């Protein structure tokens, strides 16, 4: 029941949050001294052509009317069109989002498996050789620049060893993407039984997932280790141990206790990566949200920037809602 109330509360809060976010973004993009009109006007503009663009984009209207107009369309699920590509922002974001989600979800899953294992192993053997080695690996992972690691992977596995496909985005050369069902290439090729596309898209995912997950495994490992160390010295664990419970069971208790901070960390990492994976996206030619956002900001494509921020906000809120729901499941104290 608690969970239902939680969801209800969050959803109720979502509306004012989104209005606030849309208003702030709307104003911010317009305050920055980077008027898109000049970029759109071409190499030898005239006063008339500049005027025509301003009218076309509706930028001649007072700010509050522009906002009312924007909100009016937003309510109908219309994020406007991108001024650069002349395509609906909703459609552009949809394809970018699925590309980003596919990469990020897989990376996060890999990172969780790796990070939690490393963190737990490290905590269990605290102070011993394995712990020192794993802490060093974590430190390297935390401090290595993400793009550099990505380039290194390309260099070693594509250029040198020739085992990875070329860094050309979501699917290799000469393989057609699977028929559109969900937009996730792996899922779609499974659903349509398209084996070549499945192989090609998995191969294309390998290096970017490796690059992204190694980097995010580090903070997860660090958090896991800290939480586990704390849990292992907790009274209930010491009590369980004193009662002579098998080691594995004691560890399981401790891990369960350590889960909340790990999940929170994973949630934060996930939301950041969705839009912030731009460096990995750039290295692997991945058509994700991050590069879209950077391009849109660079060219002051207002609708695209606003759409990006809004979608990212919604996803972030959703992720934190899921985290809270997981808390309810994991931690009995929250439930009662």
């Amino acid at each position: 029941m608690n969970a239902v109330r939680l969801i209800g509360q969050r959803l109720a809060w979502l509306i004012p949050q989104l209005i606030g976010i849309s208003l702030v973004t709307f104003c911010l993009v317009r305050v920055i001294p980077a008027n898109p009109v000049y970029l759109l006007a071409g190499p030898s503009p005239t006063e008339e052509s500049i005027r025509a663009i301003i009218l076309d984009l509706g930028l001649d209207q007072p700010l509050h009317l522009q906002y009312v107009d924007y909100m009016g369309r937003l309510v109908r699920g219309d994020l406007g069109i991108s001024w650069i590509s002349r395509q609906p922002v909703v459609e552009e974001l949809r394809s970018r989002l699925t590309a980003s989600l596919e990469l990020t979800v897989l990376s996060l899953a890999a990172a969780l498996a790796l990070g939690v294992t490393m963190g737990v192993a490290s905590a269990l053997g605290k102070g011993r050789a394995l712990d020192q080695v794993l802490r060093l690996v974590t430190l390297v992972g935390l401090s290595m620049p993400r793009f550099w690691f990505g380039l290194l992977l390309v260099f070693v596995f594509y250029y040198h060893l020739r085992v990875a496909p070329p860094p050309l985005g979501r699917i290799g050369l000469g393989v057609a993407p699977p028929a559109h069902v969900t937009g996730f290439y792996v899922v779609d090729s499974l659903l349509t039984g398209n084996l070549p596309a499945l192989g090609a898209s998995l191969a294309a995912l390998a290096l970017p997932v490796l690059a992204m997950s190694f980097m995010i495994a580090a903070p997860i490992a660090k958090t896991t280790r800290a939480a586990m160390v704390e849990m292992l010295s907790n009274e209930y664990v010491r009590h369980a141990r004193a009662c002579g419970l098998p080691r594995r069971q004691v560890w399981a208790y401790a891990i369960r206790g350590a889960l909340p901070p790990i999940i929170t960390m994973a949630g934060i990492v996930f939301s950041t990566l969705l839009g912030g994976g731009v460096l990995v996206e750039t290295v692997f030619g991945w058509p994700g949200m991050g590069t879209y956002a950077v391009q849109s900001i660079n060219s002051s494509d207002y609708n695209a920037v606003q759409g990006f921020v809004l979608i990212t906000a919604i996803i972030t809120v959703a992720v934190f809602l899921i985290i809270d729901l997981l808390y309810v499941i994991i931690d009995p104290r929250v439930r009662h």
Partner: protein
Amino acid sequence: MRALASGLLALALATTASGEAGESGTPAAPKVLTIAGVETPQGFDKDFQQQVASTEAQANVGATLIRYGVRTDAKGVQLEDYGKLLPGLAESWTISRDNLAHTFKLRKGVKSHYGNDLTADDVKWTYDRSFTLKGLGVTSFGLEPFLDADGVKVVDPNTVEFRLKRPNPVFLLVLAAPASLIWDSKEARKHATDQDPWAKGWIANNGPGFGPYKVESLMRGQEAVFAAHDRYYLGAAPIKRVVYKAVPASSNRLALLETGAVDVALELTPLELEQAKSKSGVKITSSGGSRFIALVMNQTKPPFNNPKVRKAMAYAAPYDDVLNSVYRGWASPWRTVIAANQLGYTEEYWPYKTDLGRARAVLAEAGYPRGFNLTITSSVEQVTAQEIAILYRTNLEKIGIRAQMENLPAAAHREKLFQAGFEAIMWSAQASVPDIGYAMNIYFRAASRPNWGKFNDPEIDKAVEKGLSLFGQERVEYFSKLQKPILEAVPWISLAQPGYHFAARSNIEGFVYHNSNHIGFAELGKK
């Protein structure tokens, strides 16, 4: 960051240079050309989408009424010949004695990608659209003072007349530029809606032209695929399919080219070009090109409203260092104010060289013996411009000018340029019409918008205006001589011509350099 990343990988690649590239890698199937570009086209609408990849695509899906001829330069590289115009969609044309009425006889049997016949209606619709929407198809050539929608008349289904309001000696050159392509109006009209009467959304995705390639698919940020148009009026192109991939990291574009995964890699850095050159299986064709890079100074206020200060800046510019350490030899010196590919280009009037002693003296003469503070603006997207600015700053400091750097996103950089909101700004461009008089008119006339620094010299203003009505060789000669007084007046600091470097597998042949810096897919062949 991206540049650093590219640099690091290039370095890494360089250390392991060996003969392995060329023999291995997966060669693409015959007659398919794969290009590693920086980004995919944003769209195929010539009136709105003008990013490099977009114009490149438009030039290949579209065909123009007339075409530029082709000549071969001293190094054996083919490039456009602006002294020779060839029939395109129009098989012939006549110009009235007063140079106002231009009548084009359209070629018969020309089919669009959709199988529709070319008619005068297509030409009319294309121009109606550009004029109504104030699209780049007319604005980027400064056509509006010369022509309006009513001036484009359908004489009969195969004849169209452009009636100019006053003579425009570059009109034919304009009509041969890629952005003067003609749309298949029959097909486009089917996709017009009440909200979008000119089918902006549809044209952006489909580019319904009469050109050698039709759009097969476009996934923005990922790839664009083009298929040869079987019924292209000049004959179907030898390359049947072109796959244009977005590969944002330049080091990856190089790696893909070296391994043979792609046939062409665009926009490599000088370091990467240097490395690619030494690889077997890779061939680089360089042309002087239309692009140039300059430092533009704001002349609406002190200190740059003083020509002597600008002259001091010209003597302080690190010309050779820019060529050697920024471009590593992959650029040409720029010793004038128009681009190397234009008729009338000459270096003979160039009066400057890096001479800090002289710069200091001229600066003192100008009344600034102790220099001044200066902000140099550049765009975050132009890494070489930033590097040049840093070299420049070092020299300026030695003559007492204390410069700081400001790197802005593209749109912000552009706004500063437009609003003359800068003190000095790094600027890279190319003229959309390959004509010396056209370039001088837009860049050095006081009233012209693209005269970003607001250069204002009444003598030069008058001299440029006087030459604008000249035609042909007379025009070229007249404006060619004007390079001398313009250089003396220092409207900007000419720094370098980055050139165009076509980096391709060595079995790719037929490259022709175009003023608009696009690759004509139909001109290429694959052995």
